[in-house]
């Protein structure tokens, strides 16, 4: 299996010499092609910092991050932007859609900044809209859509460029349970049928249970790791809950 993401001993420090905070303290792991990995942890555990480092929004203090064999901690300026736009797809908690554009235009935007001709664009958007069940909302503006629809449009935007890795930051955080389930089922579909590699950050055990692997983080370190294997989602969910209990009461609110 091909390694999509390889994280080697990364550290991230905040603050000055006198009051040092280790947001990430020596984390290493790998993600293979076609995996759906969830990173779990309570707030302040460093999971969002980790995601920001992988997405090049933030930089690491030491260590290396390889995406498709390229060390992204060495990239600078417009190479970073190029990397972000061609190799990564993003789904954010608060959707981050442009409210002035329609759903179609929002999705098209990530193609048009790669100078893809409109004809090809139309076909690809049609395809992805089919896959994510958003064909009826393509002409609508964000304010006319429900949260679930918005997040699926954002997901469409994230995967339309065929990125090596899709990064999702609390994608269900702003959704009701029904929309969350629907979105996660779509994620599963994308993962299984389209072989999209997804790395998702969440503090919610239910959301995490849709993944094929869950990595637990506490105080900037990897605490535990679970593989779903042949278990059903329900069984996997119970396993996750066990770890959460082990982690301490912090994550109880995640239920």
């Amino acid at each position: 299996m091909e390694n999509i993401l390889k994280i080697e001993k990364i550290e991230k420090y905040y603050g000055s010499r006198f009051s040092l905070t280790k947001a990430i303290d020596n984390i290493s792991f790998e993600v293979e092609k076609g995996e759906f990995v969830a990173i779990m942890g309570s707030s302040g555990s460093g999971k969002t910092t980790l995601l920001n480092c992988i997405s090049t929004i933030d930089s690491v203090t030491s260590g290396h991050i390889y995406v498709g064999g390229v060390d992204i901690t060495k990239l600078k300026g417009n190479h970073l932007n190029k990397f972000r736009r061609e190799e990564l797809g993003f789904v954010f908690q608060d959707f981050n859609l442009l409210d002035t554009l329609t759903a179609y235009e929002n999705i098209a935007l990530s193609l048009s900044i790669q100078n893809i001709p409109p004809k090809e664009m139309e076909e690809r958007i049609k395809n992805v809209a089919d896959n994510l069940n958003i064909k009826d909302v393509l002409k609508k503006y964000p304010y006319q859509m429900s949260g679930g629809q918005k997040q699926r449009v954002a997901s469409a935007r994230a995967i339309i460029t065929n990125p090596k890795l899709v990064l999702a930051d609390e994608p269900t955080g702003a959704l009701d349970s029904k929309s969350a389930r629907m979105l996660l089922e779509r994620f599963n579909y994308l993962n299984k049928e389209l072989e999209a590699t997804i790395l998702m950050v969440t503090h919610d055990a239910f959301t995490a249970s849709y993944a094929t692997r869950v990595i637990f983080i506490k105080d900037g370190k990897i605490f535990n790791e679970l593989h779903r294997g042949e278990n059903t989602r329900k069984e996997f969910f119970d396993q996750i809950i066990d770890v959460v209990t082990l982690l301490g009461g912090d994550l109880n609110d995640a239920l």
Partner: protein
Amino acid sequence: MMLCRLSLKNIKKSIKDYAIYFFTLILGVAIFYVFNAIDSQTVTMNVTSSTQEIIKLMVNMLSGVSVFVAFILGFLIIYASRFLIKRRNKEFGIYLILGMSKRKISMILFLETLFIGLLSLIVGLALGTLLSQLMSLVVANMFEANMTKFTFVFSKSACIKTILYFAIMYVLVMVFNTIIISKCKLIDLLHSNKKSEIIKLKNPILCVFIFVVSVSILGYAYFLVTAGFKNLDSADKIFKPIILGVVSTFLIFWSLSGLLLKIVKSLRKVYYKGLNSFILRQISSKVNTTVFSMTIICLMLFITICVLSASLTLKNSLQANIEKLAPADIQITKRMNWVDEGHTKEDIEDAKKDLLESFSDSHFNINDYVKELVEVNIYETQDLTLNHTLGTLLEEIRKQYIFLRYDEEETIMKLSDYNKIANLYGNKEYSLEKEEYLIVADFASMVEVRNIALSKKETITVFGHTLKPKYTECQDGFVELSAQHINAGIIVIPDEVVDENYKTHNVLVANYKVKTKEEKMEIESIMIKASENIPSIVYYNTKLDIAEASIGLGALVTFIGLYLGIIFLISSAAILALKELSESSDNKERYNMLRKIGTDEKMLNKALFRQIAIFFLVPLLLAIIHSIFGITFSVKILEMFGNEELLPSIVMTSVFIVIIYGSYFLITYTCSKNIIKERRR
């Protein structure tokens, strides 16, 4: 004390946000000072007393205009500060939560306004003092005074006036700020930047319809002021095209965004290229909310362009006209007939003498002072008025031109007399057959009227002879020295037709024997004294007087034009800049999002540049189109001042616009770029 430190820190912190505000204040103060300091600059100049009169008039008018300017600047400052307060809602919200009273917040704002006001006054006055040194060169050049030595002038009165006016404005701003603060609610303050935007899309078909309608209304308004110019014979009729123009401008801006979106969207290749869809949507979502201010800005720019170019043209034509229309040094006219009762026999007898006789009576030897002396006579008769000249076409013309005085007696001259004058002036000389006449005129609208009759070969009857016109249109020429084309028409007839009993005026035209201006002024005063010694009524007209009056008029118009033009330009540019800046900070999140999905910095900056450029250019473009017609119209109004070439003044106007408008654009772009810049942790 704490409040004082807080407000100072606030200013320092938000100096980038305040840059435009500050820049505008400084410019406003500087310009206000410069134009009010003109009088103290002219004091040091060596000019004649009549020029001094004109300068006095000009200074009075400028200070009147200053009141108007103060109003405009006052509104601008209040608008700008209200804008800046809105930007800081969250900050005030936090103060309130911390338990600060509204009174204290008002106090902070008060202190901030005070600091900014003081600073801008000091910097503005310093800049104004520097600029006014430049201005004194302009003033001296304008009044053709020779600046023998450069003196540094500081006008105390202008300085005090500037401080006073701006102090009043700042006090008003403080009052407004207090009112705003006392009215606001905490919850609104804290949540002010969380309101989600609802995009109101206009029906594209309606937009196209409205656009077409407004363009045709505008076209009609343009037609009214250019091709339909003749029908604008009374002042109130001019309001129709103005109102039509304003309304259509508003509607064009209203429909433009929808139309543009519709057009570009249909060009898929353009719309889905790079960030074009984003830029276009940004613009169309904004234009919806800024139609009103766009209209105001467009109209202000239009006024700026027209005022600047018209005033500069007027000045140039005035100067060019003097050379052409006052080709001799002096002209003395004596009234020769007294038809009315109530004059003594001596008066009537004296009036019958011509000027040369009168001069020699008073032992004044005119030939000691002048050369190239020409003496001619003018005749008038009740039997030849405009009514008669127009003949059978009178009724038709009367309907079209209701304001002419049709029963005024025509000015009649002998052919030989007219040729003598024309020879001296360097104008064309004419010849006539026995039964012919011709009309010389250069006042364009009278030429138009007379040409109607001449083209129909209307004959006239004068002193018992019937004459037919030699030419089918008026000939160019004049007798009276003047600064403008004001010759409404002189009927030139063959010498043998003239009846000497109808002689009404005796006219002397001559050049002085000397060369320099000082010597000419000396001779002129001798000549004028001699003319005033003649008991009958004598008028005189001299090139020096005409030149001075017209220089004064030119300077007056230019200064007022410049003053108003620059203030209008600054106001419109400042409003636009403030709007754009606040848009940029509202759009910060959007740009951040674009960055997150991997857009290049270069692409982002290009998008920002285009967005701001379009916002600055669209009102300017429409204003330029308006101005093409506006200037054509004003040229027609001012045509009696001569049609000097427009190009130089249009170039000058463009320079002003490029410098002021352009620098506002650049500042806006630079500040916006800073606002949307990513702040790396």
